């Protein structure tokens, strides 16, 4: 039955998106605390962070498109774009829309970071800390699978990973060898005339 396929795809893609997004957030945090080893240097973390982030978007699009085109749900495209415009689980679905749109903004601004400048990009990138919990709330609130054991375990693992990584980041405090190295380098090439 095609309808069933769409419905299962929506739920599956939603769960996969949650796992991938949590992985992206954890990798991003590993990047900011500059954790690395000879076996796994930092630039691999940032590369993986970027690639999984793009993959997450693919699964989110799959999640949304299959939900909308499923004739059984009868959601309509507007509900997928405008937060809280859905007749069905208005609050929880609206949170999903907000999370998705934040993520799109975060990815798009990352792709054009060179044009945007580092400061603006960074400010927008901080929105991840809003998008991720909103997305998790959407999953827990809307989720058809919330009460199944596998989904609960998956959600718990994702929350534990992100909360653990974020907690470490904020406790560890600012540590940035890139900024230190760049400040030193900049000093060696700065020829602005002193007034």
């Amino acid at each position, binding site marked *: 039955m095609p309808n069933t396929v769409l419905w299962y795809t929506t739920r599956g893609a939603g769960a996969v998106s949650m796992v991938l997004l949590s992985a992206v957030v954890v990798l991003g945090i590993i*990047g900011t605390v500059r954790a*690395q080893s*000879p076996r796994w*240097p*930092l*630039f*691999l973390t*940032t*590369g993986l962070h970027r690639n999984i982030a793009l993959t997450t978007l693919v699964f989110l699009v799959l999640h949304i498109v299959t939900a909308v085109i499923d004739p059984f749900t009868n959601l309509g495209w507007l509900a997928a774009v405008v937060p809280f415009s859905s007749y069905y689980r208005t609050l929880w679905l609206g949170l999903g829309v907000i999370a998705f749109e934040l993520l799109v903004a975060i990815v798009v601004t990352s792709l054009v*970071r*060179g*044009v945007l*400048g580092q400061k603006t990009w960074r400010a927008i990138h901080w929105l991840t800390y809003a998008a991720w919990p909103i997305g998790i709330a959407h999953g827990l609130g809307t989720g058809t699978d919330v009460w199944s054991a596998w989904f609960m375990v998956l959600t718990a693992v994702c929350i534990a990973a992100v909360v653990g990584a974020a907690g470490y980041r904020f406790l560890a405090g600012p540590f940035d060898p*890139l900024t230190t*190295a*760049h400040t*030193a*380098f*900049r000093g*060696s*090439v*700065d*020829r*602005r*005339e002193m007034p």
Partner: protein
Amino acid sequence: MNEPRLLAGRDLRSGAETYAEHVSRLGPLPRRGAVLIDLLTASGLTGRGGAAFPVGLKWRGTARAGGSPVIVANGAEGEPHSKKDRLLMSARPHLVLDGAFLAAHVLRSRQVVLYIGEHHQMARAAMERAVAERPPHERDLVRVFSAPARYVAGDSNAAVHAVTAGIALPTTLKPAPALVQNVETLAHVALIARTGHATGTVLVTAAGSVAHPGVLEVDTRSTVASVVASAGGVTEPARAVLLGGYFGAWVDYDRASELQLDPTALKDRGLTLGCGVIGLLASSRCPVCETAGIMRYLAGESSAQCGPCFFGLRALADACSRVANQGANAQDLGRLERWASEVAGRGGCRHPDGAVMFLQSALRTFPSDFAHHSAHTARRTA
């Protein structure tokens, strides 16, 4: 074969050519206007700073962009083995100035900046003397800026950032309208404006195990072997050539010796003449240790603005050094192959790309040296 043109005239060791000598040898600077861009395009002249970008195309693009671009004569020459830019500035400063003034005339610019490496004192002194000899309407356009002695300071984007904002760092922000052209390129422009056709020569720096290392002006059709012969031949059997400097490539000597220097032809073969460095590696030296030393240098020259460049080049240099100092191991060899492709294309400027292309050429040219390298103390780099 084309006779030397850029370095024609008085003996190179007898100091800079004066303005009077320059004008009596070549005639006054023709005022050609926009038709010069067509001449440059037809001549096939490409940039001699390293990227070999077609000069006519660059000038056309700058002209279309409009505004009043700043003309930057790039004589930073931060490439460790290159000497040709400072020799040219020291010996034939008026050729460089001619090219810069032609660019200013054609592109309606009121600003010419001589961007000269801070350690190239002789070149700077010669250029400043030459500027003083020029008529006031030319002299008043010129400003001299000392380029910091760092590898990335020679990057055209960094050069613009330096002369406009004072900081020689590549930036991804929209640059001020500018034309950045290597000093040798400008000297070729000065000749093409007079003769109407390509100079047909190129300045190279012969380095490494040759009898007389130094700068030569050679026909673009001549081969690497003939450059080596002109530099007095090899001092001991050669193993490989570092063609184009640190952003160039290692090429097996037997293959390299037959290659012609023409920048466009080399580009078609996936090689580059780069800034014209032809560095010979003697068979007695260890290519793995040389490569490790150069990778360490290039990692240290990352301006640490982009994570993949700063951390990636360091990781590659570390893996290279482990092979050099502790002997070959499959793990690090695998990492070098894998990580190199992960770093390329992920910086705001081309620094990581250049370093990676250099490393990949080493892995390609010296596969068995990397695979069977036994631990020995690192030797001095080429």
